[in-house]
């Protein structure tokens, strides 16, 4: 017995020692890997999925000799949690403007070194001004892409349900009588309290950025009425489901719905997907590129931002992902089918009806999310 025990003890010690040794060893290796000496030309980018041109990264690497590690995420919340925890190791991140505003207040980002960004002159100042409330003086970020929150739909299925193949207003999803007819072929909404509640407030003719609890209550009442006709609330599932005809109407982001349209066309599914900016108005969103305060390679990050503000480069991205950029000089390089599509580049008349989203206070945010849970689950 004691002999066996001593044997086991010895083995245990040995195993522990080996584990500790290998752990230390690998730690050292990992440290050497991520520690960035000045001669290491690397850059860590964290962007949304499916959100860059086919050759953008390769072109940047060829031009500068900087090796890019490109990772993707699919939710602002996940990005925000990583940023607030700190030490993400990323040099470039792409939050939406409202999230960016809160993150700036939390001290997440470093100020841009503007002399290193000569191509800033190419940006469309009108659009940059729209985000100046979130990022005062545009000191921390540049607009990467922007778009609207509207309605995507399948013309054929909608025609079967409603008798018309055009949707042009919020009533399609917010009027219980119409939503009821569309319920059979499937309605989806973003699982995002801000986007859906603000859109409902626009439909009700109220200020979408209001923090008045009475406005919130009115939106909740409206959404509770249409809730039985909504198949699900999800922020990415609907891209596929619209493209395959699984659902027929989505309250979603312009770029995603246009992506669904292109996917349906690629699959030759003969599904005619359309995107509408509702006539009552819609929310604008901006995806912003910024540099975390603890970014390991800020110089390379600036080089990357400057590269992306070159007209041909950003036009290449827009042509590939079918999102609007905010680069005035790039417009001439954007394909006609993208540039002249009013669902991607809205006309100046429609632009007047679009509202930038403003960050809500922590207290209102909690009430909003609580209301959202009640709407979604009935509790």
């Amino acid at each position: 017995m004691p002999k066996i025990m001593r044997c086991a003890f010895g083995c245990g010690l040995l195993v522990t020692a080996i584990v500790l040794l290998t752990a230390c060893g690998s730690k050292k290796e990992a440290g050497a890997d991520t520690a960035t000496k000045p001669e290491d030309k690397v850059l860590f980018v964290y962007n949304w999925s499916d959100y860059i041109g086919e050759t953008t990264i390769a072109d940047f690497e060829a031009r500068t000799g900087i090796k890019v590690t490109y990772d993707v995420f699919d939710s602002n919340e996940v990005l925000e949690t990583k940023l607030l925890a700190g030490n993400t190791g990323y040099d470039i991140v792409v939050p939406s403007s409202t999230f960016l505003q809160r993150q700036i207040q939390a001290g997440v980002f470093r100020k841009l070194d503007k002399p290193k960004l000569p191509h800033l002159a190419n940006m469309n100042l009108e659009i940059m001004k729209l985000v100046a409330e979130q990022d005062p003086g545009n000191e921390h970020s540049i607009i990467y892409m922007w778009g609207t929150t509207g309605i995507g739909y399948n013309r054929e299925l909608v025609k079967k349900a409603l008798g018309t193949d055009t949707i042009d207003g919020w009533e399609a999803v917010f009027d219980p009588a119409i939503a009821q007819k569309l319920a059979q072929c499937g309605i989806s909404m973003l699982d995002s309290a801000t986007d859906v509640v603000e859109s409902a407030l626009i439909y009700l003719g109220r200020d979408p950025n209001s923090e008045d609890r009475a406005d919130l209550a009115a939106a909740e009442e409206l959404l509770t009425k249409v809730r039985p006709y909504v198949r699900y609330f999800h922020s990415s599932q609907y891209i596929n489901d619209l493209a395959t005809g699984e659902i027929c109407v989505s309250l979603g982001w312009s770029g995603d719905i246009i992506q669904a349209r292109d996917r349906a066309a690629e699959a030759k599914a003969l599904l005619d997907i359309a995107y509408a900016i509702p006539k009552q108005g819609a929310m604008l969103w901006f995806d912003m590129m910024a540099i975390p305060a603890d970014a390991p390679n800020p110089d390379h990050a600036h080089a990357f931002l400057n590269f992306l503000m070159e007209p041909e480069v950003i036009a290449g991205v827009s042509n590939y992902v079918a999102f609007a950029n905010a680069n005035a000089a790039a417009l001439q390089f954007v394909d006609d089918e993208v540039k002249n599509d009013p669902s991607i580049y809205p006309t100046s008349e429609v632009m007047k009806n679009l509202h930038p989203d403003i960050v809500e206070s922590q207290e209102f945010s909690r009430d909003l999310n609580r209301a959202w849970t009640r709407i979604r689950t009935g509790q």
Partner: protein
Amino acid sequence: MAILGFLESGGGHAVSRNAREVGDSSPFVLTGLMAWIKALGPYRWASNRLRDRGMSGRTAVISVPYLWLLLFFLVPFLIVLKISFSDIRLGMPPYEPFVTWASAHVMDLKFNFGNYAFLWEDALYRNAYANSIMTAGFSTILCLLIGYPMAYGIARSKPSWRNLLLLLVMLPFWTSFLLRVYAWIGILKNNGLINNLLMSMGVIDEPIVMLQTNFAVYLGIVYSYLPFMVLPLYTAIEKLDLTLLEAAADLGCRPTKAFFKITIPLTKGGIVAGSMLVFIPAVGEFVIPALLGGPGSLMIGRVLWEEFFNNRSWPIASAVAIAMLILLVFPIWILQRVQGREMGAHR
């Protein structure tokens, strides 16, 4: 720790047999290695020091899993507990520090019990806990009803078949859990496998909506956790002494009665172990309801996600997690105490 105990009682048989086999096949290597280790100065030094303090080799071996639990369970638990007493703020990290220094020698500890009070005030959290426990409980019963005959069948099959059948039970683990749940979307959706098949056969005209329903959630949980039920049941049933059933039959007991009087009580250990292995992860399940469930399926994993990501309230999210742990650990702890006492009484 409770799980470790159950595993030990359920799977002890198989493990000890394997250990013996290994020991038999390579005794020379092991003894050689042992002699080498024992000759090492550090080994002798360490074992002498430990013996001086009244620690035998046995204590040292047992301390390894305890060290593991300390490092990967207790320390993270304490960190979460600390955050749960904190308050939200705008910054990095997004909660107030627990310890502040009022002056060089005065340390202020701030306990904010408001987060727990908040959980109690809003019925949302209670409902989510109740709903999670109900969903997990119902799934566990389904797993047991499906898993028991499966395990029984495997244990009573020809020995040459058993390993193959067990392998088939474990085979799904070779594919990522997330992918397997995702695959169910393709099977259940409106123009998915089942609906297309039924419609092409003319059984139904309109697709049956199965995805985004509670049915899909139960299906996903039962499918994903069934192996955790089957494996401990198998080890328990395999150990069962068949002569007891023969004796019962000889004494005129019908097979059904013998099953409930003999087989079930003797495999209780496996039933409890399997149920715990299914129930505990199912309570906190997030992926399955998120992918397969409808908007109405409110489970605690989702509430936790929302607190953490949407409300950015790490303190309340931590309080939700701690409350869930307390809710789960105490019943299991009591159950284990009762079981331990019963086992003691038998001896």
